[in-house]
């Protein structure tokens, strides 16, 4: 499988740093953003395949960020990460075009699997066009 570029967006710095380290250790190209604003800046600068996006963040929240991402780079796949199991926000995310949603805390392997599936879908979608 091709290498794919990942971005993790979460306001919890400890979580963000650690998950980046762990993904890098698994040879995945990954960047981090601690806010929705920052994520959009990074997305403007480079191509990202899969974004892991926390729903609940101060300032620009996950749903809003997702809406922006889909507006600017509709092909980017987004996995919503939520500490809140509110299915409303999950479903809302799905309706806005998110690939899936995962509840915190999540096992890294599970997350990796989801990322791979998301990337696969991206490839298929791109192949179609």
């Amino acid at each position, binding site marked *: 499988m091709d290498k794919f570029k990942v971005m993790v967006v979460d306001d*919890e710095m*400890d979580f963000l740093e650690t998950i980046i*380290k*762990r993904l890098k250790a698994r040879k995945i190209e990954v960047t981090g953003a601690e806010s929705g604003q920052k994520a959009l800046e990074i997305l403007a600068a480079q191509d990202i395949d899969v974004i892991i996006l926390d729903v609940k963040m101060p300032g620009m929240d996950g749903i809003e960020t997702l809406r922006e991402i889909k507006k600017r780079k509709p092909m980017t796949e987004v996995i919503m990460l939520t500490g*809140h199991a509110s299915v409303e926000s999950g479903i809302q995310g799905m309706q806005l075009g998110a690939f899936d949603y995962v*509840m*915190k805390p999540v096992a890294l392997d599970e997350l990796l699997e989801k990322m791979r599936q998301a990337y696969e879908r991206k490839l298929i979608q791109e192949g179609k066009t």
Partner: protein
Amino acid sequence: MQEDYYRKLWWNIILTTLGFSVIPLFVLGLVIYLQYSESYQAKITESLKTLVENRVGAIDLFFDERISQLTTLANTNPLEKLREEDYLNRVFNVIQARSKSFIDLGVIDSEGNHLAYVGPYYNILKGVNYKNEEWFNAVMGSGIYISDIFMGFRKYPHFIIAVLVREKNNIWILRATINSDIIENIVHAAQLGKKGDAFIINRNNILQTTPRFSGELLSTPKAPNFSAVTGLTVEEMDYQWETNLYAANVIKSKKWVLVIKENPKEQLTPLLRARYITLMICGAGVLVIIIGAVFSTRAMMKELVQMERKKAVSEDLAMQSTKMAALGKMAAGIAHEINNPLAVIGEKAGWLKDLLHEEDLAQSPNFQEFADTVNKIELHVNRAKKVTHRLLGFARRMEPVHEKVDLNTILHDTIGFLENEARYRNIDIQADFDEELPQTTSDSAQLQQVFLNILNNAIDAIGKDGEIIVKTKLLPKINSLGVEIIDNGPGIPKEMLDKIFDPFFTTKEVGKGTGLGLSISYSIIDKLGGKMMVASEEGQGTTFTIYLPIR
């Protein structure tokens, strides 16, 4: 307290009902009785008055007739003829033919000498001189004299009538003795009933006739003194602790007084009967009212208690679901707040684990310790995660799936999961299904979760050796399906019964139960539009009842 309140209410209703119905009844009865009594008393008095007047009239008539007979006799026969005893005898026979009341007849001159006599006491009376007798002086003064009753020489009650006759220069007296039997008879006719009495007294209150009960002839009567009355009198009077009705009137010819006594008890019998009937009717009415009041009050109270109970149940259910909603919100908040740090801990531990694999730490003497510790951390993060996820599941407002479900099948499958466990613990799970149970639209996965939960709890509660009965039935009245899960475990203490649906409430050992099972079950059933209830008796077992609407 509740009992007391109902009892008090019961009495209030009964007493009010009785008060408002019995009082008018009594008033009505009393008024009717008093009206009747008044008119009846008036009637008795009236008839007594008539009786007295009638008797007085008869006596007066008797006197008048005798006087006019004597007057006619005296004025139509000259003295010369009457003093001849043969002639007098003839005349006597003529008047006696018309009236047997004459005993004898005598002619007396102005000096009191008996000139002639006809009658049975010829030998005694022939030579008597009356000059000093009281009656002689009275008749010389007033012309006509009627004596009181006396025994006289004859030792027999009688009286005399004397008429003064003026013939030219000659004055003489015609005197007749009259048998008082006739007066007695007239008076006796007024002795009514068993205790009624009638008698005549003179102005000195001396009896002139023989009464039935009130004394002896020529003595003072055993009755109130009526000798001074001047006209018709009717009165109820006490005499020697006996109340009687007395009527009295003056006999005009002789200024005697006729007294009639009547026993009011005898005369008032119809009135007493009326009183008795009135009382009976009132009593029967009161009885009917009491019975009616008791019955209607009982029915009313039953209705009231039932309504109160229904209200309490629905209030209870409403409170329970409000509580659940509030707790759900709180649980979701807490879960969310915990999930974030939990995620950090999880990641950190994962990173440590990654490092352990990559670095040369494998050579460290404490490598195994590190590895174990990290694994433990991950394990417990997972455990905590399960709790928070279940909590969130409890709060989740997931739209239930709508599908046709068959409760019997779901229950059958659920029992199937647990059969091994139950057999191992020697617990018999019996299915008592209503085979005719219709399908309903619901969420089979969620229902299965609920049943699994309750059955698991039942198995845990029993521990070993026991019985669980699973029943289904159709409840057409409330258009619902009912499921009962009955175990014969130790039961739930009363004070815990209303807490078992609260989240985190558990009786299991720490670590074995999260205390969320029943509260999640409760909210699932609630969301599915049903009701879940529990009944338990310590030492007998516990019954969970679930109602699901048919739709």
